């Protein structure tokens, strides 16, 4: 039989137990692990490579949307929450379905049927949609999440020095370390506060608090000297953006 590896992610034991119970009617779904927080979930997804997630939204440390943001593999996700307002965001990330607590066995079976269908048609959650929905509406992000293997780093935005584009990745420099994240520089820029972070160059976003001074080094070309001595190139449009803010 074609089995589907699944992960149950909820911080409440009772909430996990009812999913387990409802799954007992579906031998094709094999629960490979149960996780009680977002960190465990990211680790389990990386190591166990499940195809289906039962994902609670409200959890300690990382919420359900943030867990998705950190996972790169193609997944089928069923959101489970007591909050109706998350249903809208669940749709935004093209989740297969969402279940509002408490839910009936019939409703659960229906969600599973939809999940199986999506799996055969290989309709997974698109990465870009997740990244845009992971952040609660218009508020600028207060932290950036980065995963290294199965480890998760939470970087508060005020601790970011600057961000550099590197092919498909961005390198986030913070406290002397560099964290790689698979994201476009412009997408990351859209998440950050425009009053703190400026795109000074095609390849750089600068935290303006780190800027020590600007030096002119050729016509229309400037260097931003950071407080720690780092030099970053500033383009003409980058200079205009900086001037506007300072």
């Amino acid at each position: 039989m074609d089995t589907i590896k699944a992960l149950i992610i909820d911080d409440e034991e009772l909430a996990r137990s009812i999913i387990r119970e409802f799954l007992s009617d579906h031998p094709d779904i094999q629960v490979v692990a149960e996780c009680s927080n977002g960190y465990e979930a990211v680790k389990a997804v990386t190591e166990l490579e499940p195809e289906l997630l039962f994902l609670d939204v409200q959890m300690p440390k990382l919420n359900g949307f943030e867990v998705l943001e950190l996972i790169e593999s193609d997944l089928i996700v069923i959101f489970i929450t007591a909050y109706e307002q998350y249903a809208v965001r669940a749709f935004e990330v093209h989740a297969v379905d969402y279940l509002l607590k408490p839910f009936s066995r019939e409703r659960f079976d229906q969600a599973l049927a939809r999940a199986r269908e999506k799996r055969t048609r290989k309709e997974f959650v698109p990465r870009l949609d997740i990244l845009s929905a992971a952040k609660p509406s218009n508020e600028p992000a207060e932290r950036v999440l980065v995963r290294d293997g199965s480890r998760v780093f939470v970087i508060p935005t005020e601790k970011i020095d600057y961000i550099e584009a590197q092919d498909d990745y961005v390198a986030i420099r913070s406290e002397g370390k560099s964290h790689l994240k698979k994201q476009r520089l412009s997408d990351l820029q859209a998440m950050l506060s425009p009053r703190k972070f400026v795109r000074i160059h095609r390849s750089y976003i600068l935290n303006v608090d780190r800027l020590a001074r600007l030096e002119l080094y050729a016509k229309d070309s400037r260097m931003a000297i950071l407080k720690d001595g780092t030099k970053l190139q500033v383009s003409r449009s980058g200079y205009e953006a900086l001037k506007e803010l300072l």
Partner: protein
Amino acid sequence: MHPILANLERFAVYIIGWLIFGVMIAAVLALPKDFSWTEALALAMPLTVIYGLICLSSWYVCRFYTLQKTPIVQVLAVQTIASIITILAWGVVATGWIFILERGVGIMELQTRVVAKGPLLIGINVILYGLAAAVHYLIAAFEASKESERRELQSRIFAQDAELKALRAQINPHFLFNSLNSISALATHNPAAVRAMTLKLADFLRKSLRLGSQESIRLEEEISMSLNFLEIEQIRYGSRLQIVQQIDDVCKGCLVPPLILQPLVENAVVHGIAHLIDGGTISIEAQWRGSVLHVHIENPIDPDRPRGRKGGLGLENVKKRLRAIYKEDAQLQIDDRDGVFRSDLWLPAQTDLNLNRPSPETVPTTLPSQM
């Protein structure tokens, strides 16, 4: 702002009043034939209106030496001095005006004739000052009563609003949905736990509906409602949620507004325990300190959690409600440091005088006739 100057209508009435006085004073001067009507009007009208304007300053005296707070002898003394100063000021203006009329317009011997009427004019001015002061005291009283009416209305609206919000927060739909999900999860394997949970939920809902509509309840009842809520959450969170309570016996009879602790306890769970992987302990303490009841609620909180999402609204409601009920006599202090969230509530310790009143637990909630 001066109440007469601030309102154009009032100012017009005031000036018209003084114009009438001006005509009356002119008549007093013209009727004994010492002055012609033209002379009397030219002299009295502008000077009376100017005197009226000077008298406006008595508002500041009236406001500073209010009738309520100042002994009447002192009010009389102060107002006498003020009237003398006012009349002196008027005297200076009058001298100038008489000079202009004599030299500029050419009215003969005006000064001598006015000085002859001096005592009469001063007497009239003293009376007019008294009238102006009386008007100002009346306006002050009127404004004060309007202000207190407005404040009372506002505090009533605040109280109602806060109560409504507290009630709505009380029956937080997410709390209910999550509890119902726990019941649903327990249904197959643990019917006894299902029964226990439904009873706790029913108990909590009934208490909040019954006590929420009262003006004040005993601290004992308030705490028992908070514990009831926490026990329900305990079923959901399991060992992640621990409860410790230390309520001094003397405090139990203190009267508190119903559901005043509920937003604090709910915050402790929703913004504290729920965001900690290993959970923690919520502690509730109540002590009697002199004439003050002190309730302290403490819970661990995730220090890494971004600020600005920590239940500001619930706390704001508690503060508003306290202000509406106790004015400056109650206080809620929040302290969020080193991973611990502390709420300290100080209330005037008011006790239930009727100690023999039966505890509500023994009062049947459904009367036999209704069954």
